């Protein structure tokens, strides 16, 4: 009878024979399992045909009960800019002074800053359906992406008739309308940014000009006169630069270049009423004479009369070619160092430049110059002094679990008291033009010197296109304009190329 006990050698050899699993097979089998589980995960979370998948829908209409605050102690999370996060205690108190119940605490959370980076962050939060932050500082550039997916709460459902009426009557309408989408309102203005020309009053006076006497504060200059003043002051003072602004590819097509075009009576899509659409069914008006003239003016500012496309009779050589690589912050350096006469920037820069540590009362502020008057402009809404709309809004996360408290905070933060508090603290201008004439605004240091200009310019601002195709379109325009200003293309070539690309996008996305 065969022994039932296996010898050790038999055991070893049988084990070796049984040990057929190599490392390669093991790794391959783990990998195959991972792929299989990945596929299973994909099918488990559904396809993209509107079932929401792992994306928040947040489409339920809040009831009256949802928005009635019961008075319990609660903390709401507010995703905001470092500008506000740094003075959170002050703003919290300002909210209480504006009527916010003291049982509501606000947690100011600041992470990234910058429109693009913040959009990426909100993209992640809102698409994942997270319940915090409860409300956010948002930009109108986000509207066409977030509003259709109801990733922001329609505030017309929660704010009440009184607030909605106030928004219709007392606010900058272009600012309010920038957050409207398909009949809903997805944000209320927190502050408006007003681009102006900030200049060295002492330098232009030394060159023999009289800004006060000519009322530059509320009577815009023409581009010709602006260039003349800038050149004369630059030469008199011996500064490195005359006029500085951000002209990199990102800015030239959608901000500084766009503003300049509109003040020359032009626009990318004809009348301003066409800004948002209908996509594919509106005229594209980039390759028109106003655009060519605008690019020629810029070429003259950059390279002077030696440039082959310089405008005859226009003073030039006042803007450094370095500006073609500048975004907003780098563009401020030259003016901040006292090496520029004129500088285009948003209203936030006024509080800095106009402080006693910088230029004090030697800082002048004037509205944007113009090339063609409003009545002579080719398109409705163009011409005259005109500046691009800027600013930020407050929007509510539709997945918030503290809706009632959040609505209370929104109401407090959109009160006159709060608007004036942040104006005092940061120089961020209120989105209600009437507040510029209030007693409290008149007492805000530095900014109170320029309220008339800010109010005037706020009434002459235009919103950029707010739709899902504006991003690739402004990239195409910026690329072509930049190539022209970099002397790689003629103005005619640049506008023709931009026209073609924008039309292609219109056709593709219609």
């Amino acid at each position: 009878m065969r022994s039932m006990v296996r010898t050790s050698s038999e055991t070893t050899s049988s084990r070796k024979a049984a040990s057929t699993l190599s490392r390669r097979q093991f790794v391959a089998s783990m990998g195959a399992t991972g792929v299989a589980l990945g596929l299973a995960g994909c099918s488990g979370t559904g396809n993209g045909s509107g079932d929401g998948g792992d994306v928040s829908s947040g489409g339920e209409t809040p009831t009256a009960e949802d928005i009635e605050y019961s008075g319990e102690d609660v903390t709401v999370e507010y995703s905001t800019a470092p500008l506000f996060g740094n003075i959170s205690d002050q703003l919290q108190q300002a909210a209480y002074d504006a009527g916010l119940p003291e049982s509501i605490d606000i947690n100011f959370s600041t992470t990234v800053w910058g429109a693009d980076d913040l959009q990426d962050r909100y993209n992640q939060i809102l698409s994942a359906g997270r319940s915090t932050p409860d409300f956010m500082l948002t930009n109108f550039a986000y509207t066409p992406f977030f509003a259709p997916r109801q990733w922001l709460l329609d505030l017309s459902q929660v704010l009440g008739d009184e607030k909605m009426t106030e928004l219709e009557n007392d606010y900058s309408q272009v600012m309010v309308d920038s957050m409207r989408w398909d009949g809903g309102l997805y944000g209320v203005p927190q502050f408006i940014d007003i681009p102006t020309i900030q200049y060295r009053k002492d330098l232009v006076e030394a060159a023999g000009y009289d800004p006060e006497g000519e009322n530059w504060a509320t009577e815009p200059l023409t581009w010709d006169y602006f260039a003349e003043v800038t050149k004369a002051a630059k030469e008199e003072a011996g500064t490195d630069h005359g006029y500085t602004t951000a002209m990199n590819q990102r800015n030239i097509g959608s901000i500084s270049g766009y503003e300049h075009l509109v003040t020359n009576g032009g626009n990318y899509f004809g009348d301003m009423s066409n800004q948002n659409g209908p996509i594919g069914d509106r005229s594209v008006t980039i390759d028109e004479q106003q655009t060519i003239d605008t690019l020629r003016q810029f070429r003259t500012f950059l390279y002077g009369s030696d440039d082959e496309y310089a405008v005859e009779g226009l003073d030039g050589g006042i803007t450094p070619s370095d500006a073609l690589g500048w975004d907003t912050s780098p563009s401020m350096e030259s003016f901040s160092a006292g090496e520029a006469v004129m500088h285009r920037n948003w209203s936030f820069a006024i509080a800095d430049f106009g402080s006693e540590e910088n230029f004090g009362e030697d800082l002048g502020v004037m509205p944007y110059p113009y090339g063609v008057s409003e009545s002579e402009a080719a398109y409705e809404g163009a011409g005259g002094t005109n500046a691009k709309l800027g600013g930020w809004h407050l929007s509510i996360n539709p997945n918030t679990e503290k809706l009632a408290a959040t609505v209370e905070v929104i109401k407090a933060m959109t009160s006159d008291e709060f608007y004036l508090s942040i104006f005092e603290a940061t120089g961020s201008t209120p989105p209600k033009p009437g507040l510029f004439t209030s007693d409290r605004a008149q007492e805000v240091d530095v900014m109170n010197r320029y309220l008339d200009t800010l109010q005037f310019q706020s009434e002459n601002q235009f919103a950029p296109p707010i739709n899902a195709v504006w991003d690739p379109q402004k990239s195409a325009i910026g690329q072509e304009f930049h190539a022209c200003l970099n002397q790689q293309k003629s103005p005619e070539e640049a506008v023709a190329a931009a026209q073609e690309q924008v039309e292609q996008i219109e056709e593709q996305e219609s």
Partner: protein
Amino acid sequence: MKQKVQQAVSPIFLRIEQLDEAKYGFLLVSPVFLVLSVLAFYPLVRTLYFSLQDDDLTGMHPIGEFVGLENYVQILSGDANAILTSPFFDLQAPFSSALIVTLLITGVSVAIGTLMGLGMAIILNKEFKGRRYARTIVILPWSIPIVIQGMMFFLLFQPSLSPFVEPLANLGVFSDNPLINSQDSTIIVILIDIWRKIPFIALIIMAGIASIDRNLYDVAEVAGATKWQQFRLITLPQIKPVLFIGMIFYTISSMKIYGIVEASAGCSTVPTLTCLVVQTFRQQRWATASAIAFITALVIAVIIMVYVVRYRESTNE
């Protein structure tokens, strides 16, 4: 109850007891490997899934209906160039094309960086006074955060700040404002990539050189081999495996380049494939962004295959 549970699991424990050491080891690590493989493969499979759908810019969900390979066809044929912030591939504007720019940066950076890393490794492998400090200094570029590296070179090539821009422009090396010129900026990005990758590749090669049997060199010296012959016939063949591994990692890293581009010249001046993915994703075109990401992965895979095939050929010679 306890007895019943014991009876139920005892066959499983018996089976485990009968496993050999290798299989038992695999069993212990398999949960970790499973988690890792899911973490590695799930995003890949999900990206592929998204890339086969349509973009939906106005609906409730950014991902629309199934369209098969249409996204890939549109990207590779150039039809999608209009909606992308830079063309994917356009021979008429090579320095504006994401694929061409990325391949150019990768090819030049890997070639020059590997050669310089090899030289550095050979030098640092020799005994000399201060070798320890030299090795530390050489590693420093690799330790600097990517964004700071990009910003350093941004400042180095700012016309208003840098003393080098004007002399280089006068010599005709760069234009007056290199960071707004696509060709100049691409060269600058290549320089940055080489500067930060040399320590990495040098370290890998040094590890390979350190493992070479010194006796081989003694024998070669006795046989009358020159230094070049020793390098060509001993050093190079011996370090080939680590060299290929280093080049593979280098290539993958360069193909994915993004941080130093964004921090220096910007994605609008030097459009790389990852720049295109990020910008397209930001526009809520998730399906198109996924397709570009997948194409990037495929290009990287093809390049790796070339390395693997070349390596196998060289070891079979």
